[in-house]
């Protein structure tokens, strides 16, 4: 599979602050790649570097095979960028905003009107296409900004906090759009600090902390690498008695990590131990209604990484 982005040792400082510090990673074409990190972690700076808008202090990169700092316009012509704030022109209409972008991105003249109309329809903006954007809701502006990012049919999309400030319905729409972009085979770099969003949408994630890339991989890879075995949850019909908790805790290799009113959270090294724990609970009179491993979430991984980086 072709490589859409290859960054090697990218760094950039602003004054004494090192915003991006020796970041290296690759994104294959067609992947939805998540860049995670708290505010100020360096996500936006990294996008700006890769789009050739900021110059690096050190390091190198290839984006769609091009050097972003010697061929910035070439890279940007093939990329769509959704900035953190929608950055649409409030005095212009939605149609004029898209028309302007189409002109600068070099969409062939005979296709401009058709492309703009298609996008307005696709992003449910056709009804208000000729109204000034200043009167639009945040969700509508975000949809317009996303439409603008797609006006030149880019191969690679940088989406910086695409659901920031959106209500759940609008966020869901954006998620569906990202899913649609993946199906179209586009490469997407999604910057977010919404972990559920990243978990749902991204094939792989990179976690940034204080400008450094502290982890890279799928959520499963990261949890296997960074966290202990997933805990096992035993759920009971009745409140957990001391006898049940004691018998389960006595199973070799099993530790009760958390005791709730109707559940136990166990550390069990394998399925044999899990089966023994369930047997012990039943033997002690516990009426087990569910037993299973709780997979580590991206949130677990993320906070473990941020804690380690602090």
């Amino acid at each position, binding site marked *: 599979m072709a490589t859409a982005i290859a960054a090697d040792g990218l760094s950039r400082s602003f004054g004494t602050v090192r915003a991006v510090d020796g970041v290296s990673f690759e994104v294959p074409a067609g992947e939805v790649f998540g860049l995670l990190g708290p505010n100020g972690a360096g996500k936006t700076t990294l996008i700006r570097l890769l*789009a050739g*808008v900021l110059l690096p202090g050190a390091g190198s990169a290839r984006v769609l095979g091009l050097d972003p700092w010697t061929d910035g316009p070439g890279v940007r012509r093939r990329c769509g960028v959704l900035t953190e704030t929608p*950055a649409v022109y409030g005095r212009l209409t939605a149609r004029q905003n898209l028309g302007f972008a189409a*002109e*600068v*991105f*070099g969409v062939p003249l005979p296709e401009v009107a058709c492309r703009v109309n298609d996008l307005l329809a696709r992003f449910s903006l056709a009804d208000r296409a000729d109204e000034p954007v200043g009167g639009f809701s945040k969700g509508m502006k975000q949809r317009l900004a996303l439409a603008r990012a797609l006006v030149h049919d880019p191969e690679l999309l940088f989406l910086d906090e695409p659901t920031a400030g959106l209500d759940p319905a609008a966020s869901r729409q954006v998620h569906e759009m990202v899913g649609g972009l993946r199906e179209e085979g586009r490469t997407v770099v999604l910057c977010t600090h919404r972990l559920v969003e990243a978990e749902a949408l991204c094939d792989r994630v990179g976690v940034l902390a204080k400008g450094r890339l502290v982890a890279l991989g799928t959520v499963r890879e990261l949890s296997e690498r960074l966290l202990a075995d997933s805990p096992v949850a035993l759920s009971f019909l009745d409140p957990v008695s001391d006898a049940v908790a004691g018998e389960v805790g006595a199973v070799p290799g099993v530790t009760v990590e958390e005791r709730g009113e109707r559940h136990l959270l166990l550390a069990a090294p394998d399925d044999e131990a899990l089966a023994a724990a369930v047997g012990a609970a039943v033997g002690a009179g516990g009426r087990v209604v569910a037993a299973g491993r709780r997979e580590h979430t991206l949130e677990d991984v993320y906070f473990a990484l941020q804690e380690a980086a602090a």
Partner: protein
Amino acid sequence: MNWRAVRAVAAKDLLEVRKNRMATWSILGLSVFFSVGMPLLIGLLPFAAGPSGGDLGPFEQLTRLLPPGQQDLPIGSRMVVLMLGYFLAPLFLIIPLMVSSIVGAESFVGEKERGTLEGLLFLPATDLELYAGKVLAGFVPAVAAAFLNFALYAVMVNLVSAPIVGGAWFPTVPALALAAWVGPAVALLGVSASVLVSTRVETVLEANQVSGLLSLVIVALMVGQGSGLLMLSLPVLFLIGLAIYGVDVLLVRFGAAVFSRDRLMARA
């Protein structure tokens, strides 16, 4: 140079200015004041002075600078011709200067204030193309406004003064040269300076304040005329225009050379 991108940036800015009521009304107000109000006011002078024409004091000396055909006019009429045709004509340059400065000052720092700068910098235009688009966006309406206002001023001057001067007499050749040669130079001066300033300040207000200093050029021309030190003859106008174009070229080249996406983005 991708001229399509340059034109698109300029057209977008022009559209934004057109939809900016504050800017539109400022430009219209200025136009009405200079091109309609002033000729009307000055044209009424002889009537206010009465049939004897009054005493013009030191200004009477200046009326001797008028062309021979106009030396024979009554003193009040001479004053009108002198004021409208010579003293106030340089003031007309305020129009291209202000229009270009208003648009130019808005260019980059205005985008920053409105939160659209980042989107602009992510466009696939080179730094030079972006800069050229912004300069063009200020230059074109400034020159158009200048020519329109000059035409309007000419009509108004003739309307109010023809009865006392004895016919249409404006524009004079120096006034035409002022409009056609010096006007565009001043427009370019305004936009090249204000776009340059706009890349380096934090607010539109700051950009406007710095750009406002350029009006001193116009004041200097007016003082020169009013004091009799500088009669804007054709050779003098040619040299003044040439000097301003020279400054324009330096400013545009300097502005384009120091314009940096990286610096703008780093400060955004």
